[in-house]
């Protein structure tokens, strides 16, 4: 009924270390609407990965709730797909590209023709039709990450989580993959939560950028990116609006690094207030 796809409220995570508890995430509250593309940035060690693993249901939180399509997340939920940073380690090396993309579909119980059609469509969407029968380790890093994206796309998730997916590919490939994510998002209407440490990437991709504080993490600010839907590596990145948004986020991350934190109440209220999508 609601337009909210992902609803994170007062999420907290404390790791029990050796005799000393480490509070990684203190109080995170934000929402992602259906069809939105939201990026999360923060200083290194800001608990970005902890946040993502809690949202993905891979890690038990110590407090707060995560709802996906109104259903509480207690383990990995059905409508969620994750693309990990370590592309080389998230693909099954003993399966072909086709096998990697198809395995989750097989587990869903889809019959063979449906599966084949979806796999082919997903591989076509990421431009990998020719490599369907190769093994992941025969491909370049960027192509391997395309396979991981194809697997996520074929799974037809309600929300696609991406954990610094392009942190370990070269700059040229990275730009191509960023555009691929934008294209897939627009074509398929999938909701994307994209975690990155790269401020430019966050601004270029996102409709909104959530800036996290340093540890223990809270949302420092929810920045709306006022850029046109059609984005272009050259023109968008050199536009004044991009520069403005980039500077704003950069400043916030710098402040986060210096330990600046919002007042506890204000964070929640602010993040909650930006529920609607408005795009230029």
């Amino acid at each position: 009924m609601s337009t909210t796809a992902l609803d994170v409220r007062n999420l907290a995570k404390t790791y029990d270390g050796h005799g000393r508890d480490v509070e990684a995430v203190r109080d995170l509250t934000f929402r992602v609407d259906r069809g939105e593309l939201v990026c999360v940035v923060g200083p290194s060690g800001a608990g970005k990965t902890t946040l993502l693993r809690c949202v993905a249901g891979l890690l038990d939180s110590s407090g707060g709730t995560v709802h996906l399509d109104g259903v509480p997340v207690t383990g990995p939920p059905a409508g969620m797909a994750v693309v990990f940073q370590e592309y080389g380690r998230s693909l099954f090396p003993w399966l072909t590209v086709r096998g990697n993309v198809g395995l989750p579909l097989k587990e869903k119980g889809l019959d063979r023709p449906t599966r084949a059609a979806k796999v082919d469509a997903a591989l076509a969407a990421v431009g990998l039709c020719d490599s369907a029968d190769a093994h992941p380790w025969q491909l370049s890093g960027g192509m391997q990450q395309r396979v991981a994206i194809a697997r996520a796309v074929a799974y037809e998730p309600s929300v696609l989580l991406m954990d610094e997916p392009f942190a370990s590919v070269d700059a040229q490939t990275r730009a191509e993959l960023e555009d691929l994510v934008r294209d897939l998002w627009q074509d398929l209407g999938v909701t994307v939560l994209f975690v990155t440490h790269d401020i430019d990437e966050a601004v270029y991709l996102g409709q909104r950028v959530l800036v996290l504080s340093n540890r223990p993490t809270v949302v420092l600010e929810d920045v709306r990116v006022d850029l046109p839907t059609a984005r272009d590596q050259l023109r968008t990145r050199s536009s004044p609006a991009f520069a403005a948004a980039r500077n704003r986020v950069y400043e916030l991350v710098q402040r986060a690094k210096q330990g600046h934190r919002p007042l506890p109440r204000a964070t929640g209220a602010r993040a909650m207030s930006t529920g609607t999508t408005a795009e230029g």
Partner: protein
Amino acid sequence: MTRRALVALGLPVVLVATWWVLSAGSTSFFWPPLSAIVAAFPTTWTADPIAHDVLPSLARLTAGYLVALVVGVAAGVAIGSDRVLRALCEPVLEFLRAIPPPVLVPVIALFAGYTGSTTKVVTIALGCLWPILLNTVEGVRSLDEVLRDTARSYRLGRLTTLRQVVLRGSSPRIAAGARQALSVGVILMVISELFGADRGLGAAVVRFQRGFAIPQMWTGIILLGLLGVALSGLFRLVEHRTLAWYRGLRQAEREV
């Protein structure tokens, strides 16, 4: 191709030829001429010893090895998947592995005497178990965390995760353990037959030795050697087919 075959076969041919020539005029009791050994082959290994010595030995080896493979992989997956269980078992396994497998023979003999096939199969299975078990534990333990997370986030069921992720992922280590176990198995197959008046390939060789049928003993030794080589070749064939992905992966990693 012919060049490679020449290089591969060259030395073995030279060695055998050297043996043949050097031993040709041998009058030494222990080192009969190779020609005499070869001549003894067809008369020694006729249908009867093949049916009553060779085949039962191979059957016991197969049975013991397969039991060890199934039990070792199952227990290895269970222990490898659980941190507490692993820590609990580690020193115990370390100790049990360090006991030389042939020492199992007198221990098993205490329980049931050392006659019949079952005790031999048990000996082989117990000896083969440790390398398989320990390598499986190590393979499962070192399975990539990201692969596990991937399997979980795509909600792969327990059975699919076990079959497609855990077993496939640890298969290179399991294969390494299975290869070690195979040579242990052949050794125990022979040793288990040295106790008591039994029949079997190992028992036959000792029978020839005790009866001072030296050329016949030599045929038995050569047959055991050929068996070891054949089994290792068979294993490589299976490994070559099932672990092609692993070889490719390793090569790709090396080239980076």
